[in-house]
């Protein structure tokens, strides 16, 4: 559980010293508490699982919000 991991978040590579939870990831990215949705490797990560689900090495993460659009 303590091996460092490399992931890609919104297209940018990131490295963490250990596999963190999604809640911890959002804290790290200063996104905690914002209205957003997360996808891991093409699959939705429900908000209800942010506290327990952990990132794994090689994960591709998308973090999205609602923006202006037609």
């Amino acid at each position, binding site marked *: 559980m303590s091996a460092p991991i490399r992931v890609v978040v*919104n297209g940018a590579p990131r490295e963490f010293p250990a596999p963190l939870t999604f809640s911890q990831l959002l804290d790290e990215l200063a996104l905690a508490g*914002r209205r957003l*949705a997360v996808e891991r490797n093409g699959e939705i990560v*429900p908000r209800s699982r942010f506290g327990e689900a952990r990132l794994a090495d090689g994960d591709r993460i998308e973090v999205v919000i*609602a923006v*202006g659009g*037609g």
Partner: protein
Amino acid sequence: MNAPEKIAAEDALVVAGRAYRSRLLVGTGKYRDFDETRRAVEASGAEIVTVAIRRTNIGQNAGEPSLLEALPTSRFTILPNTAGCYTAEDAVRTLRLARELLDGHSLVKLEVLGDAQSLYPNMPETLAAAKTLVAEGFQVMAYCSDDPIMARQLEDLGCVAVMPLASLIGSGMGILNPWNLQIIIDRVKVPVLVDAGIGTASDAAVAMELGCDGVLMNTAIAKAREPVRMARAMKLAVEAGREAFLAGRMPKKPYEASASSPQSGLIAPSGTASHKSA
């Protein structure tokens, strides 16, 4: 009684079983800021507003205002779109994210684009995405070409509304093929909304006079010199066009003039012409 106000009040747009007073749907892109967005949406009277789903900027958004604070979901039906998607797979992924973002909200706008120059819809990918989304419980309002067969196929797949283009997205060219729209309106049972291409108020009125159930627009309001005033103009145009459609226009009589004033009882013509018949 059939007071006009009462007819208008009862004339709701029903999409996926929910009734809306306003038949104008507006986008939220291309505004200067969220305050202008909010004021334009308020002036438009729209109850359904579209939003896009995009990657959040990381590391530069602490305390940054969010669109959903300017347009709270308690007051507006937020319609997430798939603008910018070129494949069915990306459109489906985007709307799954939107559903998660909006707490299970299932009414969505599907658009799958064909190329970046025309932003014309890719209909095979749109149909494929619609099939998947309907199976996953989404209520799909589908942007489409003004092809009556495509509109029918989207309806057959279970889309809750079809939204043919009037002309290219953001072009402001108005309704280029009213005859195709008329065929779609006549043959499709789910609501038909014109989406894309509206340039000014008369375009919106014409769409409604044709019998469209509603109009969706963004650029025509956002890129007007005074967006808030244009939003109000569009609200009035959609209402006027709808009322004119319900009222039923007079028949066109190209070769037959018909005076509106009585033809008898005219005063005697001036001069020597008292012998002329009235």
